[in-house]
Every structure is written in C-alpha cells, then in structure tokens.
C-alpha cells in the first residue's frame, strides 16, 4: 500500500494500468479460461477422501437379503396404483403400519401460476405418506430420511417397493440411534417441497397443506431413491440442488465408498470414470463431466428430490438406478445392501456433515475441484472489469490525459449530471421489473387477445418484453436532451462495470457455475464496447450474442452436445421456450432465484451496456 500512497509511484502505476490495459485484459481472460480448462486435468485435481470420522471404515456386514420381497412389494404397489389411479394412500398406510412404523399422511394442494405443459399439471392436489421408524431408546431429536417418489405411469415403482422392503428390514434392527423417516411423495418436487415446508412449519410458496402430526427432530441427512427397473446396470448420483446448492462432499464419498464395497457400477452426470487421463479423450471426458455439472448447477434447478432438502441444511443426494444394455446387472438385494450400508453409516453420525467441502466441482466421482482451486478462474475474469473500471476512472478524473491518448476529441464538458446517469439505470431496472412481473400477471389478458395457451402467453410475453428492452436507448435519449456526452457514457460504463463486477461476484460466491457462465460470456464484451459510430453494429451484435437469453440458448445447445444427444437449432429453440417457462415455474414453486436474478439484475445491467453502445 506504500506503493499507492507515494504520488510518483502511483502515477507510474496508473499510467502502466492505462497504457497496458487492453493487453492485460486479454491476458486475464485467457488465463481465466485456461485455468478453468485445466481444472479438469487430472494431475491438477484432488482425490476425494472421507473427512468425517464417523464415516470411517466399519466392520459391519450388510445383511439385507430381501430383494425378492422388494419386487413383490413393487408388484403390489403397481397394482394398487393402477387401481386407485394415483397414489395408493390407504394401501401404503396399511403396509407401513403392519411393518411397525408410525405412519402419517400429509395432504397438500398447490395452484401453479400457469399450467405446466411439460408435466401437464395446473391444479395439483396430492398426499404424501411417511412412516417413522422410532429409534429404540432415542429421544426423537435426530432423524434420517429415505424418500421415493410416487411418479406417473410405471416409473419408480421399484423405488417404493425397495423402500418398503428396507423399512421392514430396518424395523427389526436394534442399533438405530436416529429415527428414520420413510417418505413416499406424490407429484415429485412439489410433494417434497410441501412435505419439507410442513415439516419445518414454514410457508414460502403459498402451498396449502394439512398440518403435520408426526415429526422426528432435526433431519441430519436424506437419500432420495429413483428406480424404475427390477435390475440395474449402474447407479447414478445427482448432486445439484436448488439454486446450485450442493450436498457435503462426504455424502458423495459415502455413496462412492459403498458402491465400491458392493461392487455396483456408479456414475456421475451419467458418465463412468475413465482411467486414461493422459490421453486427449480421457481429458475431454472429464472436462465434459465437469461442464455438465457446471451447466446443471448453473441452471439452479434441483436435479432430483434431494435438491429441496439442501435449503434446510439437510445434506441429501438422489440415487438413480440406470438400466442400460450392459451385460452385468445388479439385483434389488445389492441395491438394498448399498442403501443399508449408507444408512448405517449415517446412523453413526455424531454431528451434522460439516467436515468436508460444500463448494466443489466433480470431474469424476473420485476427483474433485475445491473452491480454492476454481475461484481464481473467476478472479481473473473479474479482474478485467476492475482494470477497465480503473482505466475509465483515470480517464474521467484526468480528462487531459484522456485527450492526450487521443481516444476522444469531445468538448471539455462539465461532469454529467446525476440525472443523466440515473435515468438510464432506473429505466433499465424498470424494464427488469416488468420482465419479472408482467409475464405471469398479464397472462389472462394475453390469452384473451391472442390465440395462445397460458404457458405460451407467459413465455412469449417474457420474450417480448426482453426484446422490447432493446429499443430503450433510442427512447431514453428522446426524453433526456443533451445527455449524450463523452463523459456521460464513460461514467455510465464505469458504473455498469462495477455493478456487473459486484453482481457476478455475489452470484459466484453462492453459485459458482452460474457466475462463471455469465462472466465468461458477458465480461469480455462488456469490457470493450464503446459508442463508436463506425462499429456500432458490430458492438451491438456482439452484445446480443452474450445477452442472458442467448447464453441460455447456447447453454442448452452445449448441454445436449455433452450428453451426446445433439439437437437441431429448432429443437433447441423449443427447449429454450420450455426452459423459460420452467425457470419461472421453479421460481414460483420452489423459490429458485435464477429467474429473479436474471430479470431484476443481470438483464438490467446488460441493458445498461446496450445503452452505452447506442449512446448519442
């Protein structure tokens, strides 16, 4: 800091920063991106290890042998489900009760803001059934959850069957120290959300639900099970939760450890692990696994029922049985043993999971990138914004130098009025507010005047407002006479750069993937745009290419490339429309923050840059 308090050295430093600004920025960008690419290179990654002592090795032997019983439960459940045309509540209650559990039901209803066309639901009414296995001599202060969704059609019947078989086996054991809750939830995520809200007696999403009767203290961990076949070839684990929250790494390690012990093939992001890290295919494999995780985490959408538990500080993962064309299959008994092993370890937990990492990326199940390794990526990207802001600051505070540099030949005007700066900022944010509120509010009006469904109305309104925002600069200038000065746009850009830096910085701290995706696209363009008459079109096009909507579109495209299920551009557009509606629904149903973040902050910020390009 002595460097800065000495005026001479400070002058030298600022001149260095301003003179070498562009090369420095380019360098930062290159370093940032290549650092990120390097994260997936195995020699740079850490090997996962178990931090929690209670999860250490034990001599217990898994004794679950009731795979056949699980299958018979499955059959019975499927029959009952078909008969009742939904969740067979009575049958579940009866079965769980006869197994010696304390059984409770919770009914809920939720009206979506607009119909969900993917899952075909609007007014949702359902019932969750859960049975509590009380720990012998346990004081009801702690519990673990095993949940299985009761899905449409024939999906996940096996999960419920296995859950019941495990419940009846667990009931006869004496060693439980924590209560175990066996939850069968209806309407997947909505049911889970309803159950969690009722359990914690909060109401965030306007759900109506019956008061909950039975509780079992503080939930320490949860496993969600999805199984749709009697045999599986591999087990996939889904980590990403609401708003990109991740479970503690120890839980993932636990899953991996027991997959190893029982010999079950395990995958993450649907990708097996490869051993040839030193070859190019090996590297791209782990890079694509990591990118998939980044994309899923960035979406903020829970990738399974476990995703909603994370908000309540309950570590949870979803385990998904995959049945592919591989030769070697695993039966229910093996899956049961896997779950039994995990539960017995969770039962040993003395404290909540806290030892291991909460912020990480996983290029494979045995390797991880911790927050300390991936944060520099963003640091380098954010440095660009800071450097540009410094440069602008120097130019603004020392106009003579700016003239010397020959960047502009504008008149020596006084500093721009606060009004001329605040107006575009406020207008941009008002547009953001409109984008946030109008689509859902105006759906009634839209369907009266246009031949579209409610869902289409919402999505199209959102897109219309988004596009209409592009016309703003022309209109604001009409309102403000004489605002368009040289210093004006510089001040606005300085503000916007810092605003973007703060926004992205905060986002990255909470959800690295989202912050990184936005940073890697927006930052280079935002840093270099200027209101030049000659290159106005070029700048405009570049800015549109990095706008949040385009980023979403490209992300969807990339995602489908990565899961080796490429889509055409038209399909991609369809997926884009779905993603917009799902994003809005996620926000209203589970409190996902992606949509408000984009609509209220990122989009207005982007509009400010758009304003700068068209500055007169």
């Amino acid at each position, binding site marked *: 800091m002595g460097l800065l308090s000495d005026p001479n050295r400070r002058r030298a430093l600022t001149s260095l920063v301003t003179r070498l600004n562009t090369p420095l920025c380019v360098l930062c960008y290159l370093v940032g991106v290549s650092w990120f690419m390097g994260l997936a290179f195995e020699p740079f990654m850490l090997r996962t290890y178990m931090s929690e002592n209670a999860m250490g090795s034990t001599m217990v032997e898994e004794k679950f042998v009731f795979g056949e019983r699980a299958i018979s439960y499955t059959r019975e459940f499927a029959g009952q489900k078909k008969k009742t045309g939904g969740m067979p509540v009575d049958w579940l209650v009866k079965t769980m009760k006869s197994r010696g559990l304390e059984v409770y039901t919770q009914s809920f209803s939720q009206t979506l803001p607009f119909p969900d066309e993917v899952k075909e639901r609007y007014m949702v009414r359902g019932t969750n059934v859960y049975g509590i296995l009380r720990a012998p001599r346990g004081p009801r202060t702690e519990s673990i959850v095993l949940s299985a969704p009761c899905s449409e059609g024939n999906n996940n019947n096996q999960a419920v069957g296995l859950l019941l078989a495990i419940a009846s086996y667990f009931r*006869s054991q004496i060693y439980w120290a924590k209560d175990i809750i066996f939850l069968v939830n209806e309407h997947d995520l909505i049911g889970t959300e309803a159950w969690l809200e009722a359990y914690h007696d909060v109401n965030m999403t306007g759900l109506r639900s019956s008061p909950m009767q039975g509780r079992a203290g503080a939930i320490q961990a949860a496993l969600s099970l999805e199984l749709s076949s009697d045999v599986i070839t591999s087990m996939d684990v889904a980590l990403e939760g609401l708003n990109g929250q991740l479970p503690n790494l120890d839980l993932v390690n636990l899953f991996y450890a027991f997959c190893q012990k029982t010999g079950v093939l395990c995958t993450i992001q649907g990708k097996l692990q490869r051993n040839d890290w030193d070859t190019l295919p090996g590297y791209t494999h782990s890079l694509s696994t990591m990118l998939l995780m980044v994309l899923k985490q960035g979406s903020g959408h829970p990738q399974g029922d476990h995703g909603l538990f994370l908000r309540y500080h309950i570590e949870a993962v979803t385990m998904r049985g995959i049945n592919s064309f591989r030769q070697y299959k695993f039966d229910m008994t093996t899956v049961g043993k896997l779950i039994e092993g995990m539960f017995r370890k969770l039962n040993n937990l003395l404290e909540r999971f806290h030892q291991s990492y909460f912020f990480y990326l996983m290029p494979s199940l045995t390797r991880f990138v911790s927050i300390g390794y991936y944060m520099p990526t963003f640091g380098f990207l954010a440095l660009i914004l800071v450097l540009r802001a410094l440069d602008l600051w120097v130019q603004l505070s020392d106009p003579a130098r700016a003239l010397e540099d020959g960047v502009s030949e504008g008149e020596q005007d006084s500093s721009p009025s606060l009004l001329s700066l605040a107006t575009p900022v406020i207008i941009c944010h008002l547009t953001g507010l409109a984008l946030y509120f109008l689509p859902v509010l105006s759906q009634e009006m839209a369907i009266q005047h246009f031949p579209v469904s409610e869902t289409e109305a919402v999505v199209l309104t959102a897109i219309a407002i988004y596009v209409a925002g592009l016309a703003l600069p022309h209109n604001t200038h009409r309102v403000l006479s004489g605002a368009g000065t040289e210093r004006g746009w510089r001040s606005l850009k300085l503000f916007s750069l810092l605003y973007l830096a703060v926004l992205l910085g905060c986002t990255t701290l909470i959800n690295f993937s989202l912050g990184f995706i936005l940073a890697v696209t927006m930052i280079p363009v935002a840093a270099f745009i200027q209101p030049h008459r000659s290159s106005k079109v070029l700048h405009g096009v570049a800015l549109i290419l990095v706008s949040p909507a385009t980023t979403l579109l490209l992300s969807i495209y990339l995602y489908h490339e990565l899961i080796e299920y490429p889509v055409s551009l038209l399909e991609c557009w369809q997926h884009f429309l779905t993603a917009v509606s799902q994003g809005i629904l996620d926000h209203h149903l589970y409190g996902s923050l992606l949509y408000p973040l984009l609509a209220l902050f990122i989009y207005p910020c982007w509009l400010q840059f758009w304003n700068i390009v068209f500055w007169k």
Partner: protein
Amino acid sequence: MASHRLGVAVFVLVATAILAAASEPNQIESEQLQDVGGSPDAVFSDAEGGFKTGDGASETVPGQAETPPHSIETGQADSAGRRVSIEVGSDRVEEPVADEELENVQAEFDLQDAPQESEPVPTPRDHFAEELFIRPLLSGDIYTSFQFRTRWDTDLHWGEKVSHYRLFPKSLGQVISKFSVRELHISFTQGFWRTVQWGQPLLSAPPGAELWVWFQDSVADVDGAWRELTSVLSGIFCASLNFIDSTNTVQPSASFKPMGLGNVTEQRFLRYAVLPREIVCTENLTPWKKLLPCESQAGLAVLLKSEKLFHSSYHSQAVHIRPVCKDSACRETSWELSQTLGIVFDLHASGQSKREWSLFKMFSRTLTEPCPLASSSKVYVDVTDNPLGDELFDLSPAVSLQTQAVVLGDRRTFTVYDLLTPEPYGPTRSLNILLKWRQQVSGDMQRPVLHTERYVSGYGLQTGEINTLLYNSHPFRAFPVLLMETVPWYLRLYIHTLAVQSKGKENKPSYIHYLPSKDRQRPHLLEMLVQLPPHSVTKVTVQFERALLKWTEYTPDPNHGFYVSSSVVSAMVPSVVAMDTNSTEGRPLFTTLFHSTEESSYFMRVYSEPLLVNLPTPDFSMPYNVICLTCTVVAVGYGSLYNLLTRTFQVEEPSGGLTKRLANVIRRLRGVPLL
C-alpha cells in the same frame, strides 16, 4: 388491573386444584373386593403402580380448602361384590387383608423373617415392598414397571443422629440429613415415551436426567446446598449431574409441588433441572440396584439384567424420596423411598416370529423366590383388554387372583401373582409368566386425552420458532394445563411473539410467569396456564434468535447442535371412566346420577420431546489458520486501505539528504535558523 387480579385469582384456584392432585399422581381410589373364581373370601391387593399411595391430598397439603371430589365416594356397594373403603394413605402393611391371604402372608413372613423375631425390637421400623407391573400394549410391545418401596418410620432431620440403617440405603439417608432435603426426585430415562402408541406411563419422565428437590425451609443457602447435592448425587448414580449449574436450574412457580408431607410451597426452596443429553446405561443401573435391600440377589430384582434391559425401546429408572405420614393420625412422619424402573420391550426388534412374551424372553431369568426382606412381593398383569381371558392373548400360568383399580382415570383389571404364596411357582418352583398374543394386534391404543408434540420451525441459523402442540382429545370437556418451558439462554426468546392458538383463535393464557434469561447465568423460564378446549389442538409458539457463543463456550461437538430440555405439561385430566356416558352395565343406576361418579379427573404430567437446535458455529477445523488469516487481512488490507482513504496527501519538498541533516544539526546547535 382488575382483570389481571382476577386472572391471578383464577390461576390460584386452578393451581391449587392441580397442586392437590399433584401429590397423588397415580391414585388408587378405592380398592375393590371381588369374588373371583367362586372363592368366598374376597382378596385384597394393592394394585397401584405408581409411587404414591392414594388419599394423600388431604394429608399432604394441610389447609387445603377443597377436597377432590373423588375422595368422597368410597364405600359404595357394587353388584359384583363388596366394596370397602380403605385408608391406603399411610400404613400399608397393617392394612386389613382378607383372612386367608393374611395368614398366608404371615406364614411366609414368619418363615423368612425368623431371625428378626428373636431381636429385641419387636417390630422393625422399616418395611420393604416390591412389585412388578406388566401391561401388554396393543402395538404388540410390552410395558413392564418395577417398583421397590422402602419405608422407614424415623426422622432423619430432627432428633438423635441416625446411624443404624437396615433397609433404607445409608448413602441416601446421609444425603437427606446432610443437605436437609425434604423431597428428592431423580429420574434417568433413555428414550421417549410414545404416548400415542403406548398410552399413559405410570410415571412419566423426560429423556435424559431430571432432578428436582425441595429443601427444608431451614436451609439458608439453597443454591449452595443444591450445588453440593448435585455433585454428591452425581457420584452416587455415576451420572453427569455435576453438569447442573445455574444455567440449567430453574425454580418453577407452579408446575412442581411437593408430593409428600409439608406445607411449604415457597418456590425458593425448590430446584429443578433437566439434562436432556444424559445417556443412561449400565453404569447408572448398577448403583441404582445397589440401593435395594436384596440388591439383585433375590426377589424381583433378579430380573434386572442389563444386557436385556437395554435391548428395549424405552428405559426409565427413578428414585423418589419423600416424607409421608406414619399413620392415619399423621403425628409422626416416615420416609419413603420409591425406586421405579419402567421398560418397554419392542416386538419387532426382538426378532420373534411367534408373537409371545415371557419373563424369560424379556429378562432371561425367571422368578423363583421373593426378596426375603420384603413384606409384599407381587406381579400384576394388566388384563383389561382381555376380560374373558382368551380374546387377545393367553396368559399362563393362570391364577385365580384378580383385582381392579382405577389407574390414571381408567378402570383396569389385573391378574395378581403373589410371590409370597407358593401358588404361582407351580411344580417347577419357578414362575415364568407367559403371554401369547392370539391374533394380529390392531396396534391402535385408545388415544390419550392429553399429549404433546414439540418442534423447532424455520430454517437458517439466525432465527427460529419453538412450537409446542397440546392435544386435548377429550370429546366434550375442556381442562386447564400448566405448561412450563425452560429454554437455555443462548436461544434468545422474543417473548413478545408468544402466541397461543386453539382452533384458529387466540387463546389467552390466564396466568403467565416469565423469568427472562441472563446470559451465561440462568435460562428462560416460562410457565403459563392454558385452557384447552375440547377436541382441539393448542399451539404455543415463541420465536427466538440464536446467539453466537464465545469460542470456548462451544461443546466439543458443536455441529451436533444444542439441546433444549423437554417442556413439562401438568394437568388435571378428565377421567376416561367418566368419558363413556352410557356404560351402565355392571353398575347400579344410582351411581351414575351425577355425571362423574368414579373419579372426575386425575393428575398427569406429560413431557414433550427435547429439541436439538443448531447454533451458528465457526469452523473449528483450523482455528490457527483462521486467526492468522483474519489478523493479516485486518492489519494489512483494511488498515492501509483505511489509511489511503482518510489521509490527505501533500507533496513534500525533497529533503537534502544526509549532508543537509548534518548541517541542520550544527545549525541548531548554533542557534541559527534551519535550512
């Protein structure tokens, strides 16, 4: 102001009623003599499972204005047999017992106590009685409750210094006299009583360790005595009672009243503490067994084998000491020590395919003899759900002895095995009571009239809300309950958010006693009297903020969470017997002229679940790194940035270097202006 006074008055009235009943938690109102098996002589037996004999209300609380209605109606004729009013209050051994039985007992007693007869003292001044109570629960589980009661007709406080101990354990006797204890109640419980599945326990206790003590009014330094007493008890029972300090001790104003003799109800002589985290295991059971006269060598105590006792769903052991009347005139006092042990065995976890229970299966022992020092030794099996003997379960060996008693507001029938008689042992000389379930049990107990539930709502580590649900499932009667909550200081209660709601409407408590916490000194104490409307759920909520502790105050496992002890609900609960309005069979019509003839209400104490609350916890895994990093950031980063922002900079003339400074020194010496 007036309304406030009225509220207090109402409270005092109700509290008195509750208090009156508090002294007799498990009354056996009237013993019933019944003709069983054609035997001409009725058999008397004392069927109480609790630790307090009945009829204590009028004695224990002198100056009591109102007598509970149930104490009036003894001595009614019954169609089934004769009903005799018996004073069960003070002296049990000399109770009128039917002739045949008495002879038997006397015979046994003489046989076993032969050496004592030769002693110069004609009658021993202390008595010991033991009993085992077994209740099959409809969930298929089984509840067993032991009670060992020693009475000593002596005064431990006044008079000569007592040095000769016979049946009464010396360790406890010395504690009583040294600390001037008037009443002592201590319980160690592992597990939570599942009221909805199991019905009412004979004696409820919160999970963990609970200790409450009334001191004599002669004690000057109650806090000091309490501190020492907890340390001594901690040694006697091998428990962590020494963790009881001022931060978890309270003085309840209304919830805990003396259960024995004594008219001092001033709360400053009362101390109450709960350690919800206390784990109960063999090391607590062994010292408890050593207090018994026969230890575990003979009598019912041979069944107490820890490897089986801890293979159960619920385990609760307790010691209660209190002064009682020596005789009906109540001129002198006796000391009564009750040791109780309640266990629930789990059907599913015992891994049995045949649904049956036996003493051997439960305890891996059978009974062969009573404790030779015992004046009474009995086993009671609750057969109320099985009136004809073969609907729900088979009970063997079959004995002809049956008795009825009203326990916790419900009339129950018991089969009695008197171990002092040779009858129960049979030809094998050992008693192994076998209970075989006949059919698939339904698993639905009658819903208890009062039960509670408690949980923390909200998420995040800043605030939260404690919710207590009070269920009154009585179809038509409302009754008041006293709710007591003790919350540690590190949960800062927002008492203005206290809300009591029943059926969606606000339910204003008629009495609230709130003692705010002091950081690191004392917990919050909240007591209130709430009227529970019939068939309703009353929700008591209060919000709190989680405090950030000092770093040395965290427990070694801070991420486990911090315990909040169970809340205590004390109530006079309307009797179940009074609930069925149309069951007149077996009773003359005139007995039901008034609605509740038998016993309109009984005292009950219900404990809720303890809570586990997470506090904001720093990362303790690398404190050194954290401290270093923080200090560096603060010192270097913040300090110099602050400096830069606040200092004004001025360009200084470049100084001339060493020669100029030297010249200046010389000039100063010379007194010439500096350069």
